[in-house]
């Protein structure tokens, strides 16, 4: 576990500074140092919305008008994207990431050789949102009138609505790029606090308006898609302005946080006080606390800090029946089924999470990346299994297969000195020639250790010793760190791919240890076979990594992408292949989802996943809590 130095405030300050630099290392965004972390109250009444949010948004990433900083038809910040410069070299623009402004020399070759893509063939894209393509809003006038009187800001501008009509599934982004816009919310409201939400939900019930909660918009389960059959007015409830830390309780190491806060803000603000939650899902730049709760999110450092269900101490949720919350903050209770578990994973079907008490930890004193190269994937998995058996997993341990290793390699930025590239050459020579690793089979595990320095080093040795038993060779901090950078830029890469007729996505599952190798092999092979059967003209990229370890199994993450030139309906083909891949996952003992959730994308398999009785239990909760289906996003059930 992370070290504890909470007594000494100066050392804590130091830790905080270190931690900040680490996060900044990931994100390289100037940290606002003076954002106050105070117990604040919602002052919804009396002040004008504009002024209030202006104050609120200071130091926060996400403004009400997302379009100010984010792409409307792709991932992330408008200023950050991959492109091929005039020399035909790949480059990552902007200043936000470590990779920003760098040349990535290997990417072009990789893209061309992996997918058969060519820079000559660029796919057309709709450059700006055409408001004409957007259906005029169906407004419930009575609702709008009453809402106006509460002073909660709202909008029915086309751009605001389109931004909240989708997550980041391939088909959603593909449609946006083509300029196709289907059913979208009729208006967007920005509550500022719990009480605002209570009012909105009351009004929605009163006027029979459909509410769809919106947090960070990073869903990959079609959860944010508006059901096309919905005839009521659909209101997107954007929690992004509920982004304060209400209090920090240092005695119990907990913090009360509003649900709209996004991961990077939460960590940054806590860091300023010397704390962290340690919850770092790959989407943490944009995903929100409420979204994590609603989907049962998982963070990459869960081995130390736990997944979201381990982190929450208290949840407050507004439902059509009223507010649900526990009366105390006891660390564990035996009071019948845990009502938190009706909320965790409810995917916006029952209500809006407004406030959460989370466990916090002092920031770790020391952090160290690492990596291990294995001769093959089988050995790598055996090593991870042993690490899990001995319960000595580092904060994060991930095993990439050979294709993903090569992918990671292609993302290596241009090296500045001859000496580094010489060293790289030497390393490669050592591994492939001296140790006899086959470059087409070897795979790499990336590691992240956290804690106090001494323990980290000890821990590191323990893990490397285990790895050595499975033929693993330590391969340096750089390789490890690059592996984690990749997870932040991968979504940007998809946009680049789409510029060149390559579409793809990731999906995940969890599976018992004895099935890990089988599921990886079979799902990857199924993807290749399905692509072939469905007429995909080029061999697909089908790759996976073991991304989390547990006592009884692991989480496996698949990437799959192909060049769709020559296909008349690429998205349909894509969906068929993805469907087949999920069938294969289930047939091989994998779960329907480890942390992405079900949404509408994977709904059809819910019954076989949780049994008919299980479905009935969930349905009866829904029927009681929300009899009129106010929270009508139709996820899950």
């Amino acid at each position, binding site marked *: 576990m992370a070290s504890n130095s909470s007594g000494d405030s100066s050392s804590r300050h130091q830790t905080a500074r270190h931690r900040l630099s680490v996060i900044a290392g990931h994100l390289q965004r100037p940290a606002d140092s003076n954002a106050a972390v105070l117990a604040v109250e919602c002052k919804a009444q009396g002040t004008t919305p504009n002024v209030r949010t202006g104050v609120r948004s200071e130091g926060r990433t996400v403004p009400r008008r997302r379009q100010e900083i984010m792409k409307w038809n792709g991932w992330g910040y408008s200023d950050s994207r991959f492109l091929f410069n005039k020399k035909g070299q790949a480059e990552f623009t902007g200043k936000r990431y470590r990779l920003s402004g760098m040349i990535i020399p290997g990417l072009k070759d990789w893209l061309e050789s992996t997918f058969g893509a060519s820079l000559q063939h660029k796919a057309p894209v709709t450059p700006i949102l055409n408001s004409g393509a957007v259906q005029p809003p169906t407004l419930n006038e009575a609702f709008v009138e009453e809402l106006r009187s509460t002073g909660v800001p709202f909008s029915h501008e086309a751009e605001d609505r389109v931004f909240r009509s989708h997550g980041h599934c391939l088909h959603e982004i593909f449609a946006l790029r083509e300029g196709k816009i289907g059913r979208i919310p009729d208006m967007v409201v920005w509550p500022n606090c719990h009480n605002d939400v209570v009012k909105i939900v009351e009004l929605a019930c009163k006027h029979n308006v459909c509410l769809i909660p919106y947090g960070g918009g990073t869903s990959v389960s079609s959860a944010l898609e508006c059901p096309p059959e919905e005839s009521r007015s659909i209101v997107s409830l954007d929690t992004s302005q509920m982004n304060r830390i209400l209090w920090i309780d240092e005695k119990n190491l907990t913090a009360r946080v509003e649900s709209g806060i996004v991961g990077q803000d939460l960590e940054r603000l806590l860091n300023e006080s010397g704390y962290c939650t340690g919850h770092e899902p790959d989407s943490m730049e944009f995903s929100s606390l409420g979204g994590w709760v609603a989907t049962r999110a998982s963070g990459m450092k869960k081995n130390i800090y736990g997944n979201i269900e381990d982190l929450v101490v208290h949840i407050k949720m507004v439902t059509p029946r009223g507010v649900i919350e526990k009366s105390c903050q006891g660390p564990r209770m035996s009071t019948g089924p845990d009502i938190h578990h009706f909320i965790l994973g409810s995917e916006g079907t029952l209500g809006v999470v407004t406030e959460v008490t989370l466990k916090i930890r002092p920031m770790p004193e020391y952090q160290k990346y690492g990596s291990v190269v294995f001769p093959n994937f089988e050995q790598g998995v055996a090593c991870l299994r042993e690490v899990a058996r001995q319960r000595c997993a580092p904060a994060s341990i991930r095993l990439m297969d050979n294709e993903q290793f090569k992918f990671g390699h292609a993302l290596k930025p241009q090296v500045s000195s001859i000496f580094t590239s010489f060293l790289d050459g030497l390393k490669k020579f050592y591994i492939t020639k001296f140790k006899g690793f086959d470059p087409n089979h070897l795979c790499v595990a990336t590691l992240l250790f956290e804690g106090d320095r001494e323990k980290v080093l000890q821990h590191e040795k323990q893990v490397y010793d285990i790895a050595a038993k499975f033929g693993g060779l330590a391969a340096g901090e750089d390789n490890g760190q690059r592996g984690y950078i990749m997870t932040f830029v991968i979504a940007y890469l998809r946009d680049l791919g789409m510029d060149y007729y390559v579409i793809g996505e990731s999906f995940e599952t969890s599976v018992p240890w*004895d099935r890990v190798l089988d599921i990886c092999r079979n799902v990857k092979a199924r993807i290749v076979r399905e692509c072939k059967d469905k007429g995909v003209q080029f061999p697909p990229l089908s790759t996976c990594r073991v991304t989390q370890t547990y006592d009884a199994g692991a989480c496996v993450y698949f990437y799959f992408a192909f060049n769709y030139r020559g296909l008349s309906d690429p998205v349909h083909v894509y969906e068929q292949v993805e469907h087949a891949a999920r069938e294969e996952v289930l047939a091989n003992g994998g779960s329907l989802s480890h942390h992405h959730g079900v949404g509408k994308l994977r709904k059809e398999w819910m019954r076989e996943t949780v049994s008919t009785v299980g479905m009935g239990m969930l349905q009866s909760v829904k029927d009681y809590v929300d009899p009129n289906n106010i929270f009508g996003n139709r996820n899950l059930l």
Partner: protein
Amino acid sequence: MASKVVYSHRDPMLKKRDDFEDMLEERRATSDLRYALRCYTPALYKGLTPCKSSELKNMVLQSDQLLYVINQVSKETGTSTDEIEAEASAILEEMAHRLQLSTVRFFAFALTKVFKTVFRSICVNEEGIQRLQQAIQEHPVVLLPSHRSYMDFLLMSYILYTYDLALPVIAAGMDFMGMKIIGEMLRMSGAFFIRRSFGGDKLYWAVFSEYVKIMLKNGYAPVEFFLEGTRSRTAKSLTPKLGLLNIVLDPFLKGEVFDVSLVPVSISYERILEETLYARELLGVPKPKESTSGLFKARKILSEDYGSIHVYFGQPVSARSLAEGRVNRSQFNLIPRHIPRKPAEEIQDFVNDSAYRLVRAQEENMVLKPWVLLASLLLQNQAAGNKQGMQLEELTDQAVWLRDLSRQFGAFLHWPDNIPPSKVVSCSLSLHQSLVRISEGRVQLTLEQAGGRAEPGLPLPAVTPEEELLNRAVIILSCASYRNQALHVFIRPALLASAVHAASVNRKQEIFNTFSFLRNMFSDEFILRPGAEVQDFEEACYLLVKSGALQINQQQVLVTDRGHRTLAFLTSILDPFVQGYQMVCRFLCEEVAEGLTEKLFVPAVRKFITKHLLSGRLKYAEVLSSDLQKNALAALLRLGAVQKVRGRGEQGALKVNTVMVNSLEDTLGGKLPTQKPVVARL
């Protein structure tokens, strides 16, 4: 045979079949020694983890499944796990192959010498070989050859070696181990030996199944076994055995491999080496124990002409596509996969159905020689009582007619169209001189003084009528084994023809009922996929309508004028079986006393049938075949007309439901309408 033999088939059923190449041709032209010593570098499975056969044994002994069973047996018997492990190791020792390239090379050399003397050609479809080569690289491969001769598996390995393909490991019956040197040599050429029965022996099963699975999963080598379990003595395909198929499908069903390619291989012999040996075996002369010295005695074979062999490597069948939509693989999610479990009914049905499909695939690619048609015609003529045989011209005419009919039915007939039919017929007849002779322009079976001339081992001049009958039966059964090769082409139309013949009215539904009855009755005799009544009926209707024998509308089935000949032929082809089954029924009703066991059944029924044959009440000597008798009994057991009573003795006595057997006999004889309403309706 000097020129390249390339056969192409125009097929009205539009079954696309590959062309053949004679692989002996090259052998005749080049040095055998150089061939045996040539560089052998087969393409291997992409996921192969190379290992020696000794490492393989360790992998088996350390497998989770085996360790589990060892522990289980230890707990049950109180024996220490060490002892049981030693036992498992001994079993494995007895079982395991020791594939060695040098032995394979020796066989390659020796077999070439033998093959070149005995066979005119060995024809292989090279496209099939290419498909196989592809399949071997992609997925674990299971080779499923048909089994008509001891030659089969040597021939298979020989072909794979010649075409530079990975050599298979072959499941062989333990009886081969009796042949000391040969047994060990077979082992070194890739055979592994399994006991014929090990019903309740958990440990044996675990060792055996794990051994096969590990070889398959690792892509060590293609696994080869015979779906039919044993050599078919009748040349009809046998009801498939499911044990090994279960084992090789298991890794796929449990997700341990992505897919398994099942490759049906059809080996057809123009003349079977064991021809009369089989006939005698079926007549009750026991099978000689395999021995090395026996093999040498068999060397007289070398002086005879056995014509050609056709080996057709079928389209690889993906286990995955067989299971698609049929098996829910997630049923294995909730119990650790290494714990042995009896397969669920769903799986059993699936494996059974797959086995039938694969045997049908073997059947469909069996090359039929003209002689097969001639044998059918001669047997029918013989049964019709024409002791003088047939005029050669008449036989040729009929053969041409049958050739066209069988092609319409989709037979894979090798009838060289560039040679006049009369020549084709006389060529075929000359190859089978031991069974047929031509005198004064008439063709007849060599029934008179049969045993005396050609075959040693039989008493020379038959002294008693029984002995004479036996000698005649040897010839008839040998001929029947050729006719049987074509039965799979005719069986469905023949069942329909018999149903039409038996039906009093033309109503389609009624005819279907009779068809189903017959189909059900004979489902131990022929390869009829369980649950495919309607499909088979429709196929039969389609073929007979297409060949112009029947007209079928919504309600009725009508025989056309020119259809009578076809229907008569088809009915007669089934007739020996119908009468044979009736005989068995009659025997059970009339003769069975208390306490007849299964073991005693065959001799008793044989005696009964001999009596009827001698008295002239029965005209088909082939009913003497123990295969038919056993199949009939199996059918009656299956239908519940006979039951096995677990008695004090080790063998259960047979209890006959006389009423039911009687009514089955009458229904078969067309005296009673089909009684039981069948489940499937059209």
